């Protein structure tokens, strides 16, 4: 079965930049797989998503979606295949939850056609899967950060994609809502068979919930594979330039940053 998304030895440099943003990165995401991409700021995580989804063309290597080059997909076709929850969203006008989730049906609608019963059904399913059905008639600006994030995931689900891509979805969420979000994503992978590619800062949650990690540093892949193989003490300390202690919870590595005394600070 061909993977939903595959990057093969991808190298990319932004025009006029002094160094590569991505260098020799490979990644493969299939159905029922939860992949997380980690790394310090500036390690190339968002660039990876842009190349993977065809917004940028790799200078070397390939980016494929279902074995076809990502750049070759028409926008609307790609949107039926991949649901993206980008880092930033600026809702210009007040909207209700149901309306904004309905926007996710756009890839399935023709230019002049109206929304059909099946579109509304898909919206209902998406709302249910993200447990926001009772918020359906609320205005977006009345929602908490965590609720709003779930609504955005619902919108991506309404696209009925096979692959879900999330860019730092847990940022600025509090503990309860971040945990809830990761549980939601894990659940979608397990029950609906979606493939998930998530960029996140949160090493510990990524290690707890994801099937596979890719650790980047300055655009280069440092380690990839099962969380226990990737997040070792030496690797984390080297990449994040900070002393840590590693623990294990539920068989998954968890990182605890250590305090530094003044002398040992490099």
């Amino acid at each position: 079965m061909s993977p939903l998304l595959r990057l093969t030895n991808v190298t990319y440099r932004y025009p006029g930049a002094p160094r590569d943003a991505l260098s020799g990165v490979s990644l493969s995401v299939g159905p029922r797989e939860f992949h997380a991409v980690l790394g310090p700021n500036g390690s190339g995580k968002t660039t990876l998503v842009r190349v993977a989804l065809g917004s940028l063309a790799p200078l070397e290597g390939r980016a494929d979606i279902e074995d076809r080059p990502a750049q070759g997909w028409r926008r609307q076709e790609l949107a039926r295949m991949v649901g993206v929850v980008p880092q930033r969203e600026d809702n210009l006008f007040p909207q209700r939850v149901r309306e904004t989730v309905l926007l996710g049906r756009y890839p399935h609608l023709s230019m002049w056609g109206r929304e059909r019963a099946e579109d509304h059904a898909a919206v209902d399913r998406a709302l249910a899967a993200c447990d926001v059905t009772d918020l359906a008639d609320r205005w977006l600006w009345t929602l908490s950060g965590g609720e709003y994030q779930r609504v955005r995931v619902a919108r991506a689900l309404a696209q009925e994609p096979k692959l879900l891509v999330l860019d730092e979805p847990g940022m600025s969420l509090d503990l309860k809502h971040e945990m809830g979000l990761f549980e939601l994503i894990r659940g979608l992978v397990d029950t609906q068979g979606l493939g998930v590619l998530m960029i996140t800062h949160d090493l510990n949650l990524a290690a707890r919930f994801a099937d596979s990690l890719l650790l980047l540093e300055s655009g280069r892949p440092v380690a990839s594979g099962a969380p226990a193989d990737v997040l070792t003490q030496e690797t984390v300390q080297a990449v994040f330039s900070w002393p840590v202690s590693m623990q294990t919870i539920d068989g998954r590595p968890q990182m605890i940053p250590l305090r530094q005394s003044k002398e040992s600070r490099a």
Partner: protein
Amino acid sequence: MKWTLLVIVAVLALAASVVLGPAAVPLNELLRSDIVWNLRAPRALLAFLVGGSLGVAGASLQALVRNPLADPFLLGLSGGAGLGAVIAIALHLSGPWALPIAAFVGALAALGLVYRLGLIGGAALDPRILLLGGVAIGAFAAAITTAIVSLADASELRNAFLWLWGGLSGASWDAVLLVALYAPLPLAVLLAASRPLDLLALGEEPARYLGADVEAVKRRVYLAASLLTAAAVAVSGVIGFVGLVVPHLARLTWGHRHRALLPAAFIGGGALLAIADTLARTVVAPRELPVGVVTALIGVPVFALLLRRWTIA
């Protein structure tokens, strides 16, 4: 239900435009009256077409530049049109259509300049640059216009500013026909962009990931809205507030789905301008107010009310 009401309001507005006026035409003579057929009727229709075009252009532009304060005249078109008109008068170009054509060409020139500016960052039209560029080009054109007017000897040039203030005095069946033939194409382009415009409200990147061809949509919407505005300025000068306020009023009832919002903005804008023009013609009869003054007098309090709602929300 709300559509029925809107259509009724529009029909009443048009009827009032034809029945009411400073020249007292008795009801039983309406159908035979030369004034009604050759002056009021085309003027009412032109007001409707221009008001509707400005309403739709305003709604589309607000979505495109992601700014609820956007008005079709922020794009520098009015400055270009004024400059074109003044040059036409200064060169003594003759012909009944000299002024509108010159204004249209001037508006297109401004459009071209702003578009070129908007492409500065690469192939992507940056909405912020469109706004800033529009204001800059508009101011530049206005400055040249003022310079020409102050250097030239003709007092007619000073009266050109009166034309720019906005008015439907030039309405004739020819003008109505021209606009009626010209407007449907840009209007159709904007209506076809309804869904992408909905998506664009989320931001360009999310819209792209939801399947919109953002670059193509931006280009099309900018050009179509500008072409509509250029035509409006050419036949009726600068009529402010319609393009700014009508979309917000329409959103109050029809929400933000452009599929419904754009047609509502068209009918609403048309009705508003027809009403404003009737008021302009009758309130201080036999004198006439510039219609831009009436739309501002109506528009500003409405806008203030809307602002209150915005800040409460």
